[in-house]
């Protein structure tokens, strides 16, 4: 290496494949049985929710068209019994997954986008902007989230949109704190200085250097956020803030409670949406833990 030989001319090799990281991730994930179980649960629910319109029609969902016995216990024809208007609880639970999952996921996307952006900005600009954003975050943390969500949906009106917004507004703070802490740690590392010396500006440092290093954390936190968003959705709908004509797990719980399922001993009516929530939340949590383990930088290299 005492002299630099001329680089031989010829066709230039292409840049390396970009999916190596993903392949490594997939291989690591498949080593974790709990993660596979979680993913399988989620896939099953997602398929059911997506295919629901093909086998559940208005005659099973509309109160006026329902034909079954009222509040009947599980039987061969109605595996999970019926509700107070004679609708199949199984069909309701499957249909309810659509809006529960949709609201949970959309609220999570909003939460993560808002929280990551604020956390990244607060971590990168450590001056006035950073402390202002952190004060804002502290202020939102201090607010009790349930009353805030209730008053928000009261202002925005009933319906899934307002519930989604209410969930996002009340739950972005923990993501923001997490991302800010990680951003601070990454910003202190020498490769940020190298990037600056190469001529990178603020935006390039945040997006090209910091974000890829914060991304695993964001992914992990978002899978866990979905679980809590689905719970919040159920809570808010149960409290009667959702769209009354729309079936979701929360609204099922609400009507079961309101129609006296407890006193009638109609356990199938209460338990079905409750167990569905439990399983989906568990699925997201298992998936999140597995992702965390695979992406943890201390375990990724070996």
């Amino acid at each position, binding site marked *: 290496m005492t002299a630099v030989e001329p680089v031989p001319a010829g066709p230039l090799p292409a*840049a*390396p*494949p970009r999916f190596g990281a993903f392949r490594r991730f997939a291989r690591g994930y498949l080593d974790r049985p709990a993660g596979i179980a979680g993913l399988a649960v989620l896939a099953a629910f997602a398929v059911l929710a997506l295919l629901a319109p093909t086998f559940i029609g208005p005659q099973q969902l509309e109160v006026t068209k329902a034909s079954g016995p009222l509040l009947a216990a599980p039987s061969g024809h109605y595996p999970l019994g019926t509700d107070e208007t004679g609708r199949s609880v199984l069909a309701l639970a499957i249909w309810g997954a659509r809006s529960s999952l949709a609201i949970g996921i959309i609220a999570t996307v909003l939460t993560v986008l808002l929280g990551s952006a604020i956390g990244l900005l607060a971590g990168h600009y450590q001056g006035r902007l950073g402390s202002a954003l952190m004060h804002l975050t502290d202020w939102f943390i201090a607010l009790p989230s349930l009353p805030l969500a209730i008053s928000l949906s009261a202002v925005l009106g009933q319906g899934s949109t307002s519930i989604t917004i209410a969930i996002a507004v009340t739950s972005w703070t923990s993501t923001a704190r997490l991302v800010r802490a990680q951003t601070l740690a990454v910003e202190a590392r020498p490769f940020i*200085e190298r990037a600056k010396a190469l*001529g990178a500006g603020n935006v*390039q440092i945040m997006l090209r250097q910091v974000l890829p*290093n914060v991304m695993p954390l964001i992914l992990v936190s978002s899978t866990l956020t979905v679980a809590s968003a689905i719970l919040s959705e159920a809570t808010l709908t149960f409290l009667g803030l959702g769209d009354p004509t729309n079936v979701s797990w929360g609204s099922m719980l609400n009507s079961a409670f309101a129609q006296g399922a407890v006193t009638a001993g109609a356990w199938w009516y209460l338990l079905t949406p409750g167990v569905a929530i439990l399983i989906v939340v568990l699925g997201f949590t298992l998936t999140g833990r597995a992702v965390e383990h695979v992406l943890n930088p201390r375990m990724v290299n070996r």
Partner: protein
Amino acid sequence: MTLLEVRDLTVTYRQGGRDLPAVRGVDFTLDGGEILGVAGESGSGKSTMALSLLRLLPPGAQIGGEILFEGENLRTATWGRLRAVRWAQASMVFQGAMSALNPVRTIGQQICEPILLHDKVRERAARQRAAELLDSVGIPARRLNAYPHELSGGQRQRVMIAMALACRPNLIIADEPTTALDVMVQAQILELLNELVSGTNIGVIMISHDLSVLADMCSRLAVMYAGRLVEIGPADQLFTEPRHPYTLALSRAFPTIGDPVSRLAPAGLPGDPPALGTQTSGCAFAARCSQVLPDCLTRDITLWPGGPDREAACLRVLPEYADGDGPATDVPAASSAEAQATAERPATDEQPALEVRDLKVTYPSRRGRGPARAVDGVNLTVGAGEIVALIGESGCGKSTLARALVGLVKPTSGEVRYRGTALGYSSSALKRYRRHTQLVLQDPAGALNPRQNVFDLVAEGPRLHGLTDDLTARVRDALARAGLRPPEQFFGRFPHELSGGQQQRVVIAGALALEPSVIVADEPVASLDASVRGEILRLILNLRNELGLSALIVSHDLGLAWNIADRVAVMYLGRIVEVGTVEEVLLRPKHPYTRALLSVLPDAVGDQTPVLLTGEPPEPTAIAPGCRFHPRCPVAAALPADDPKLQLCRTRELPVLSGGGHASLVACHLATEQAAASVTGA
């Protein structure tokens, strides 16, 4: 009397179902009162070997062989017996004094702990003993109630030594005791350790990556490579006439200043140390050896006698392979040619590449301290195609100066000029400037984003500057120039898959991809292994010779300046105190500080009395009036109290060295030949 006898010691880690042999068949003995040095690169197994002696390794490690300590086999001793031996009879000095001390307990409590545990004395007696120990390591006894963070790095290492001596052990194992310390503090600690064990019957095993430190300090030396001892023998002989080519490379890695062979010719070893568990048959060093024989790859290598009281694991010490004067005599042929190339470099009288005028960087005061004058008036010139070394202790402001030069730190006053135009600090001006001046950082592992592959890492600069037309060719070129060949093989690899030397090459390639004309390198080799160090320095030297790059290299190591620099500037507490050509400054130093730095460089020959500066480098928040060096200056200290010159030192501030041109300049009231004589006489 034999204190410790190690026979066929092996340590194997089990990882992922594979056996990784970290230490393979090590034999040695240690007598009481003897200091044995163990040298080797990172991953050579030296620390594992040291920890295994007291069975301090993590549970996954399996130890084989015999460890006979005062006749007792520690490998098979019960845990209770082992606990009794640990610290009471054999103690350790760990490397990172900050992490080895408990931050929430006072140093007094921590020194007392082993005394109370092993000696079964009362609290008061233990504190009495702790106070004596602190006193003996040169820390006032009243500091017993200090917490570790209140002490400086050197003082913490002294506390570690006091702790090691607490129970009057017979054996002390010192694992890189001075690695993280400054040259001056390192010299103080080594002196202290030597003082404390000389005349006693304590045996010491001292581990270091720096052969020259060990050669200075130890009576016998052992060199480890890939888990094996490759050479063992009396320290001075082993250092001056190594029998194993690896020992030769290690001893050459830190040059002797004044030795013309190493001037502008850093010595290094090609390649990287083998990874754990990849050893094949034959000599583990064969892949990097400059004088490999056919039999090296097949024949089993063990330690063979290579002279009186010496052994080396090299075929060439065997009579049937000896040719003439034996191994370890080659001089790299490249060195003279390179020196030639340098000498023939036309004297450039064009504008200097980089120029600093009266630069000051002051950080605002924090927590009751005054403002920190990190850089306090510096003039410095880096000519076109010139390599300038900036030398100083930690905290002297050299890294701040380097960052100011590349525009990462905005100076409080003064200016940085690139080819005669002053640097502007608008973001567009800075961005333009960054195409010309690039930074290389100390720790390559940290300087590379772990989530980018080599291609993206090197392409980062060109992408930021919109030079994406022939990106692949540009990246390939830069990698090839940085010595990573063939470059295509490295494109898809990630930093953690590369060795330390390769990582630093990627950092350099990333800088080269912008085709800069100046490189500012902040301690580019400080975190690299000794054998890799020379290779990286040679790369920088070649880049200068072939591309005409100018470079400013920041370091604490004067040997580095001798290796590659044309001129050298010595910095103390925010100011440059001496600047000139390397030959002038290093061979005929005028400033007492430069003299002191040169005198503490470890040299096995030992013909120089080290001038130890007292104390630690002071903080830039409290700069002494007058000459800022006078509180630690050995020359000023030797003057009688009423000497008018001393008054000068104490009261009159020295002018900022102008630094232009190639004259040697020194900032000292006493820098006369007479003063020089008094230093050498002292």
